[in-house]
């Protein structure tokens, strides 16, 4: 996978961290047809996203092909400034990528 396919932004305010992430991924459902060849595009989508902060898993997301291309994920959790964050995704072809960031 290409470098920097994941963008993470996490900001702390009043003990609550707002986490936002964008991933670069085609998210093919496997039901779309290539008009030129008449063949179906094979399914290729992220299945599992895990976000850990300060060593704890704060979010596990299981996705299907119905999540939009270049998926966006946002949620809030209790945390503090400076905590290390890691996001890891795995797709249905077995590929994976991860990115590290820090709470600001």
């Amino acid at each position, binding site marked *: 996978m290409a470098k920097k396919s994941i963008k993470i932004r996490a900001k702390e305010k009043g003990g609550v961290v707002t986490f936002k992430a964008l991933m670069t991924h085609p998210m093919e459902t496997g039901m779309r047809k290539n008009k030129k060849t008449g063949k179906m595009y094979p399914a290729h989508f992220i299945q599992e996203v895990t976000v850990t902060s300060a060593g704890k898993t704060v979010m596990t997301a299981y996705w299907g092909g119905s999540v939009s291309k270049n998926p*966006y994920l946002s949620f809030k959790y209790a945390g503090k400034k400076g905590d290390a964050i890691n996001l890891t995704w795995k797709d249905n072809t*077995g590929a994976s990528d991860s990115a590290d960031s820090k709470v600001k």
Partner: protein
Amino acid sequence: MSISTKRRTLLKGTMGMGSVGLAAAAGLLTPQAVLAAWNEAAFKSKSIDSAIGGAAAHSDKIKIKAPDIAENGAVVPVTITSDISGTESISILAEKNSTPLAAEFILGAGAESTVSTRIKMGKTGAVVGVVKAGGKLYANRKEVKVTIGGCGG
């Protein structure tokens, strides 16, 4: 619109091939050994009840933020907030999609019960938010009108 209508018909036809063929194709494409936790049956199921593993009780404590009219069905921003105490997971489903389950979020340590993402919607229908709390399922829905492919309106 006529092109997209045809496309829908085609999709339905393909889906109707039979679950055996579909399951076999899915098996080839999905290395399940690597991703044991991903619930394939739920993501492949075609009805909401079987995707979430049971009937869910309606709850107004689940708030769904989604546009009333989505111009582009490929990118529909959805935010689901649950005020139910002890929320364990939040699932997002698009009722009219051939496989309704779009995403399931398992809340971890300290996570608040709010998630946002963007989903695809094949056509106008309800976005259903399902919350699992204390072993029970709760659901709420919101109608989203989809005007596919920038027909303009």
